[in-house]
């Protein structure tokens, strides 16, 4: 009998009191449009294309991001400059499909594609959610300030032969007998 009363009445009264006292605690709500939440720097939000420190596009149109994308929202076309560098002729992200998973950023070998803390991307017209290269491209380097793919990669382009990149030795001449 005592246990029944304890379980049915006393514990309920204790619960009621505990919940009632919540009236005097501060609400957790962030009143969003009036009050901006703190966005963490590594938040996966709006996708940008960055430039290297020289101001050139970092993207080399390798298509790895488009392959990694689980919802197939990235479309691009490779083109080549006279000096042998690759670049995307067009680069299109359909943000109405994008799920902000960040796989494209992980797949990118040149740190070109990056996700930013911006998340306010709502549009009234669905077509406005499709962003072209000129919309995506920013002037800065994004999160990686000193990285320049063509300076560190062994890729041969005009004015830079194999082995001339940073931290790189000239290629071994396999026809030479010298050690």
């Amino acid at each position, binding site marked *: 009998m005592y246990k*029944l009363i304890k379980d*049915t*009445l006393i514990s*309920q009264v204790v*619960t*009621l009191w*505990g*919940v*009632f006292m*919540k*009236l005097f*605690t*501060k*609400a*957790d*709500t962030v*009143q969003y449009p009036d009050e901006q939440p703190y966005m963490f720097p590594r938040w996966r939000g709006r996708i940008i294309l960055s430039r290297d420190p020289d101001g050139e596009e970092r993207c080399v149109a390798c298509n790895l991001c488009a392959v990694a994308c689980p919802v197939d929202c990235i479309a691009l076309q490779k083109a080549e400059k006279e000096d042998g560098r690759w670049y995307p002729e067009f680069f299109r992200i359909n943000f109405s499909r994008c799920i902000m998973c960040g796989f494209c950023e992980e797949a990118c070998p040149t740190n070109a594609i990056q996700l930013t803390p911006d998340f306010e991307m709502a549009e009234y017209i669905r077509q406005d959610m499709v962003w072209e290269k000129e919309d995506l491209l920013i002037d800065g380097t994004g999160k990686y300030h000193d990285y320049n793919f063509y300076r560190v990669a062994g890729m041969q382009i005009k004015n830079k032969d194999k082995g001339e990149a940073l931290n790189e030795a000239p290629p071994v001449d396999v026809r030479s007998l010298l050690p």
Partner: protein
Amino acid sequence: MALEIGSGLTIGLILGVVIVVAAMLIWVERRLLSFWQERLGPNRVGPFGLLQVVADMIKIFTKEDWVPPFADRLSFVIAPAIIMIVILLSFAVIPFAPNIGVVDSNIGVLFVLAMASLGAYSVMLGGLSSDNKYALLGSLRAAAQMVSYEVFMGISLLGVVALSGSFNLRTIVEAQEGMWFVIPQFVGFVIFLIAGVAESHRLPFDIPEAEQEICAGYHTEYSGMKFGMFFVGEYLGLVLVSSLITVLFFGGWMGPAFLPPIIWFAAKAGVFIAFFILLRAAIPRPRYDQLMSYGWLFLLPLSLLNLLITGVVILST
């Protein structure tokens, strides 16, 4: 026309105020619930979100009022009307203040109990006529719950009736001049509170409409203003139970003279409305069989015991 019992002005005022209060409770409940859950609740529409009710009303009035083709049309349509009618009729006998009320009935307590019993038809018909499994389950539960809690809701009131010697709610209020009945009838008060929650199927006992188990229970198929009538009917029931507790156990309009009686009544009823919302915020829903066995095996004997002891005390003094 003066503000006296049964005048047209009084009746109109009571009807209007009760319905407006029931509608405003939508906002009050959402706001209070969110405070108790460390949120803010609706605070965008108008000052403190007060116009949220207007927005809700516009939405619910402009919704399509759809009757499912497989439903039994007549009972489907009258079911939501029944709950509104019986609860509004119950307000007729509530004494709000010495000069405010609709009728001064000799059988006020019985009338309220009778109307509460009729309310069971609303949920039963609503669930049955919907021809929907969830609605049927909900109305089954509602019928059993309301019928069984009806029993000791009545018995718990008999102590009050015995103490005041009258079924007239006004006489009961006047009999509490010296002491509120909550003190001699504390057990009766607790039982009536629990039964009142079950009668108005508010959250700890909202088993007939348990969202997590059976969609919306008996009003699964309802939409538009028909659903709105069930919704407002639930809040009207909440106001009714709070008013009844105030009248029967907390001295109705009685209070120190610096405030008018109607304010005292409203304040006491408001505390109980807030308490019912707190119940919703704090207490989880019991299982269906737990509810039934708790009612029949614990509350019914307890209320009978309470009545017995009350009778013995009255006879021996």
